[in-house]
């Protein structure tokens, strides 16, 4: 079984300040973890992914996330927010292949608001 919890449904930051979007997961298997971004009226786009290589993962547009097994967390960060970062962000967990078909699980999303 697996699940993912995004701890904040809404985060508001000022332009130029750091961004932190929190995600906790649980998984019976070694997980792969992802962050997706959805801009208004658009589909979801992959920001970054963790698949058991380096625990600090760098993604597009200056975002990065750190896999912390002891804390079962995969928080998304960015040093300096830009207006174009305003969007909905989804944390996703997927079990690494166990020999059978497993589903990908989406978090409920965090809406990031960037204030000028």
């Amino acid at each position, binding site marked *: 079984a697996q699940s993912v919890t995004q701890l904040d449904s809404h985060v508001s930051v000022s332009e130029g300040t750091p961004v932190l979007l929190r995600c906790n997961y649980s998984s019976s298997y070694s997980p*792969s973890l992802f962050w997706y971004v*959805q801009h208004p009226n658009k589909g979801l786009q*992959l920001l970054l*992914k963790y698949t058991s290589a380096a625990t600090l993962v760098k993604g597009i547009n200056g975002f990065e996330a750190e896999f912390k097994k002891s804390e079962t967390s995969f928080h998304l960060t960015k040093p300096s927010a830009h207006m174009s970062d305003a969007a909905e962000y989804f944390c996703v*967990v997927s079990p690494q292949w166990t020999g059978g*078909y497993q589903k990908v699980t989406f978090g409920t*999303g965090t809406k990031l608001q960037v204030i000028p």
Partner: protein
Amino acid sequence: DTAVSQTPKYLVTQMGNDKSIKCEQNLGHDTMYWYKQDSKKFLKIMFSYNNKELIINETVPNRFSPKSPDKAHLNLHINSLELGDSAVYFCASSQEQGRGPTGELFFGEGSRLTVL
């Protein structure tokens, strides 16, 4: 060249009507999905096909019928539309490792269905 394309982008229709949404991917992926996103941005998987074989069929009313004529296409037909069917429907594709999901999904831009 769009990787995952869905048509139409918008549908507005009356209760009781039937409608279809089409999806095509040119990524050479083996697996395609339909997701429903409600007004609170929650994403729920509906169906998944792997090489034209139905592998995920969530608890979805049987008014919803997917069809995959080949692995590059996955269509969704909805009969007797109800108010609660109003949502954004996303098509996605992925390249699986064996039978297991990678979690790396490529999404279309969505089809916004409004039932009046």
